[in-house]
């Protein structure tokens, strides 16, 4: 399971990502995906709880977390684990 705590502007704060991932780029893409997803969803007058990018093998879940964003490469259980790791 990989995760990243990200500022809303896409700045990496902390987390665990594989070495081959360019952190700065990955985080800004997550922030952009969340921002664009939120804007699209708000067209229907609803607030966004999470943005999920479903892949063939992996999924990325991005959700708001204490004024920032938490991105997890994994499933809902991994999201809960990531929250615990971020707190510690």
């Amino acid at each position: 399971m990989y995760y990243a705590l990200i500022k809303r502007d896409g700045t990496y704060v902390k987390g665990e990502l594989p070495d081959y991932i360019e952190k700065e780029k990955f985080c800004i893409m997550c922030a952009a995906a969340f921002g664009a997803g939120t804007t699209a969803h708000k067209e229907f007058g609803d607030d966004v709880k999470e943005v999920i990018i479903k892949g063939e093998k992996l999924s990325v879940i991005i959700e708001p977390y204490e004024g920032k964003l938490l991105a997890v490469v994994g499933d809902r259980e991994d999201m809960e684990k990531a929250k615990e790791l971020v707190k510690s």
Partner: protein
Amino acid sequence: MTEIKFSKEELIKIKEVYQGIMSYASIGLFFRSGEIIGDIIAQNADRENYFENVSEILKEKGWVENIEFGENEVKVKGSAEVHDSTAPTCHMLRGIIRKIYEKYYGTIVNVEEEKCESKGDPYCLFVISRMG
């Protein structure tokens, strides 16, 4: 090199489109765009009078009306990115400044815009801190 000019009004309107779609993430993209511009400016600046040279380039390109480089802070008057706002707005300039200092110090630096004319401050103030 071919140069394309944007008016301040055009730049602000383009930024509004990005902000309208991507919300806060657009700040990061503006910042990274600024880093690209800053990298090229820093590469082309004369090493002997580095900050004077960079200052002239930024004024000539219309990014600022005036800019004063200090060891840990930068004061700017008339940033092209200034418009009415409750938060700092000079994200591209912040990226430009970051690359200018990184080239100078040869290490990673963090740049925060602590004052901004957009918020009603008398000038924009960028605070530099070395990370490495």
